[in-house]
């Protein structure tokens, strides 16, 4: 695990303005992503976890330039994406593909599987139809779909099959990085396992790097090498999967893990239940984002924003508890 960083995100901020007033004065911002940094090394899987609204999906969209980045640097294979010309950016996209959460909404119902899979090829200059069909057929084999399916429409498939199509679309350009935004959240349990296994197999076969965005800690634990925990647009803790699950440092990570339902009734346990809801990203707390719900909050947490601290070789945490 000494590979080079494939993707580096530094001080990423993504703010959405809320327009108000007659002449549309920009008054407030939704701070969806508020100054986060992380990196992904080649061949590894980074899990980005957090509850809904914590900014994990926005981060993914920011990296692929689907939403405008307010501030910060995204370096992919050593190139700063913000500094790339438009054409080059499109070229880079080839190496950085997304898999989306909702397999129903992410496939255009008016297109056949072939059309859907041909689209990235066309967009990136594969002109020969023969070559396209060849690659599509190959890709269908890879994701475990019948070649005949190429002429069917997306709506004829079940959720698991659709997600395979979505994965095929992402893979067809031989990308380096796959950003998977909750790829199994909408699937039934039995299907979820199939897809997770597929993702694992593909990673091995194609040397893929994953940014795996999920709210499901069990899935993350199963799939990821490293985990980054986000809360309200900020990074709470990052570290290797082992460390995070065995020895969570941030109080939020701790409660998050506590909240996971047990997997066997014999394991019934007493636990701390987190109180209250996630506050609004329009008006986040001044100090630590988690301060309002944190069982261990103290005075300083209200004023100072904690920075990520390297706790050990594999773990960083943003919490004043570990400031010393």
């Amino acid at each position: 695990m000494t590979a080079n960083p494939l993707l580096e995100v530094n001080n990423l901020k993504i703010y959405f303005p809320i327009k108000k007033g007659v002449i549309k004065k920009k008054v407030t911002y939704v701070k969806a992503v508020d100054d986060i940094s992380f990196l992904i090394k080649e061949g590894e899987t980074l899990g980005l976890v957090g509850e809904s609204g914590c900014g994990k999906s926005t981060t993914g969209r920011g990296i692929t330039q689907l939403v405008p980045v307010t501030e910060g640097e995204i370096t992919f294979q050593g190139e700063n994406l913000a500094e790339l010309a438009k054409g080059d950016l499109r070229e880079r996209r080839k190496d950085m593909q997304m898999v989306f959460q909702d397999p129903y909404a992410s496939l255009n119902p008016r297109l056949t599987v072939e059309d859907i899979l041909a689209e990235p090829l066309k967009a990136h200059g594969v002109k020969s139809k023969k070559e396209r069909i060849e690659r599509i057929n190959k890709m269908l084999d890879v994701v475990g779909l019948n070649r005949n399916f190429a002429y069917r429409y997306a709506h004829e498939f079940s959720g698991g099959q659709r997600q395979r199509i979505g994965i095929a679309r992402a893979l067809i350009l031989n990308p380096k990085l796959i950003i998977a935004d909750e790829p199994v959240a909408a699937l039934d349990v039995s299907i979820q396992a199939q897809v997770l296994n597929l993702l694992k197999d593909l990673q091995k076969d194609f040397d893929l790097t994953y940014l795996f965005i999920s709210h499901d800690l069990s899935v993350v634990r199963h799939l990821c090498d490293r985990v980054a925990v986000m809360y309200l647009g900020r990074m709470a803790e990052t570290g290797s999967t082992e460390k995070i699950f065995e020895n969570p440092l941030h109080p939020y990570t701790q409660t998050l893990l506590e909240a996971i339902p047990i997997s066997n009734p014999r394991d019934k346990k007493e636990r701390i239940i987190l109180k209250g809801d996630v506050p609004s990203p329009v008006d986040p707390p001044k100090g630590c984002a988690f301060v309002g719900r944190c069982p261990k909050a103290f005075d300083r947490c209200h004023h100072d924003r904690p920075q990520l601290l390297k706790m050990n070789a594999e773990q960083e945490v943003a919490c004043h508890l570990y400031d010393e």
Partner: protein
Amino acid sequence: MTMTKNVLDIKDLTINFKSEGKELSVVDGISFSIKAGETLGVVGESGCGKSVTSLSIMGLIPSPPGRVANGTIEFEGKNLLDFKEKEMRKVRGNEISMIFQEPMTSLNPVFTIGKQINEVLLLHNEMNKSAARNRSIEMLKLVGIPRPEQIYHNYPYQLSGGMRQRVMIAIGLACQPKLLIADEPTTALDVTIQAQILNLMRDLKEKTDTSIMFITHDLGVVAEMCDRVVVMYSGQVVEETDVDTLFNDPKHPYTLGLLGSIPKATEKIDRLYSIRGQVPQAGTVERGCRFADRCDKVMPRCYTEDPPLLKMKEGHQCRCWLYAEEEGGAEIDS
């Protein structure tokens, strides 16, 4: 097992839905019962018929296209299917109440929280408005809503999903029902909020002694909440047992597969067990075991004969030919 009396007894319930001129049995001859004070988990993947079953208990199956084709739903000894609409209205919300999966849309956006709790109170109780108001605020307090007097006047959009689900629970429990049907009440919620709600439900159950029928696809939630579990697959009950047996001695290949395919937060498994194939639409398999296509232990017999529900031990039944001879389990008449 103590012989507590059953609150709900479902026998041979078959529900058909009409689609493109054909009638499909979405629920096909299911039977189970819920004892007083018990939490029964109904587990299954999407399309297995668990929600339809719960709606049929409430008498809320959209008709057409759906209809109860066969069977009985006995609630405290009386068959609900014989009830007239007017009698049924007295049961709903009063003796049996229900909370739904989507807290965001289950509350009427144009009425205040208070009005929506009052509504059910005034419907089923002889009380005046101010009494209803007091009781509503009491209920809000009970489900752990801070500043209940203020929330009473709020509209649903002003509350978060977790809070709304608490309100739904308050509405469900307002008339102290004998049975609460919870249809995936936490699926749409974040883990931390889910934990809050599950905790709340456990607490309330202890306080009120209400029986709960807990419908979910999440086995983790089942493990936390339920006393007994019914596993459904494609409109049928494939296994019924107490929760401990389910997790530690499951019999049906589907249950086994399901347990195996769930990743665990507590340990790292390199490769998940996965059930092959797709979840069939309920009612589409005409003959044989409905799981046969996906089963690793499938036998020729599975394709041709419908497996009966076999008794494994007291309170444990399983619908699989695997156990027909070896356990000698008696067939439970269906």
